[in-house]
Structures are given as C-alpha cells and as structure tokens.
C-alpha cells in the first residue's frame, strides 16, 4: 500500500466511505453523537434494508457502532460514528478538499 501521506489526494480517499450512500450516512452521523436508525434512514432517503446493508459494511470497517435498546416497549436501534470513523471521515474530507482545490468549509 502506498504511503497515505504522499502522492495524489485520490490515494487518500477512503474506499469504505467513498461509496455515495455510505458517505451520506457517515456525513450525517458526524453531526451527532448518536442517532436513531430511522432518523438516518429518513435523512439519507433510503430503505431500511439498504441502510442495514450499508451500516453492516461500515460496522465491519469499525466506522459505525450499532446499539439496540428499548424506549418503553418500543425497540430502537442507535447508530453512532466511532472515533475511527470520525478520523476516516476527516481524512476523506481532507482529500476531497485537496481535489476540490483547497480548503472550503
């Protein structure tokens, strides 16, 4: 693998986050500590099954943590970006900014 600190910025893009839907999920989760599954689903505008599939990929990469619980009798699934996920997103955004031609924010 190439040294991530050198070469063209595209080499520093994160393969897991780069997929558009997963990028939307991670970008949305970056704005909060934790969010309900349904909130993320509505924000990203995908189906439950599509979100489950993408979250499983992000979870296996260690970028998203999934926790389940109850509020009253209602089961709820919570999604959170892990520290590793936040770092990966920051690196990915930095690479995108470089490709876009400088700091944007």
């Amino acid at each position, binding site marked *: 693998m190439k040294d991530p600190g050198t070469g063209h910025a*595209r*080499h520093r*893009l994160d*393969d897991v986050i*780069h*997929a*558009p839907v997963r*990028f*939307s999920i991670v*970008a*949305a*989760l*970056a*704005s*909060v*500590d*934790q*969010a*309900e599954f*349904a*909130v*993320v689903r509505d*924000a*990203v505008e995908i189906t439950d099954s599509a979100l489950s599939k993408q979250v499983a990929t992000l979870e296996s990469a260690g970028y998203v943590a999934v926790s389940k619980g109850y*509020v*009253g009798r209602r089961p709820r699934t919570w999604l959170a970006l892990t520290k590793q996920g936040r770092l990966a*997103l920051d690196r990915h*955004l930095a690479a*995108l*900014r470089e*490709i*876009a*031609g400088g700091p*944007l*924010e």
Partner: protein
Amino acid sequence: MPHHDLPDVDSAHRALDEASTRSLDSSHDRWVHGLACAGFGVLIGANVGVLRLARGTEYYSWISLGSLALLVALAFWESRATRTWPRRARRTGWFGLGGSVLLAAIGHGILNTVYREDPGPLPVLVLASAVVASPLLVAGHLVARGGRR
C-alpha cells in the same frame, strides 16, 4: 486501489457540499436534552435543601421517593422525546451531573457539620441548592445552545 468513481473537482465539491448539509443536528433534540439536564439539576439541588427541611418528619421518605420518581420520569421523557444525541451533549451532561453530585455531597457534609441540630437558615439552604444545581444548569445551557461540530 478499488475506488468507485474517483472524483473530479466538481464531484469533490458536491461531496463536500453533501457533507456540510447532511446534518442530523436537531434544535428540538438539543432543547429537550438541555431542558432535561437543567431539570436534573433543579431536582438534585432542591433535594439538598428540601430534604434537610423534612429531616425527622414523616415527609422525608415521601420526598425522597418522589424526587427519585421525578428523576426517572424526566429521564424517560428525555429518551422518548428525542431521536438523536447532539455532539458532545452526553459528555457535557455527565460532567454536569458529576459536578452537581459532588457539590451535593460536599454541601451535605458542610451543612451537617455547621447545622447539627436544625436544618439551617432558609437563605443558606436556597443558596446551597442553587450551587448544587449550577453545574447541571450550565451543562443544560451548553447542550441547548449547541457548539462547534
């Protein structure tokens, strides 16, 4: 490297726009978490004064149980009324709770030492309650106001 579509300048801009606009941060949830934080502070703070006033009376147990029930109800309402935890809200809340619980322990200790026989003057109890509540009130304000991403 198996990148999907390597972005050109325009798609990188679009992705960055997407990242900055796709926010789940909700002012409603911030407000609820902040209010709950402040509510915990008021309950814990009020307990310090009220329990001293009720010491030795038949109301002591009822007030203790009542405040516990209110704390549980407040926590339940908070979890029912919100669907997200804003950035750093949970950590801020825990810091506030830690501060209030610590001040409550110190306050009880001081009041028990200074006023052994009686509950103490009302202004002192009110002041002690306000001091105990203050970390959670500040935490509630910070959570409701929000901060940097």
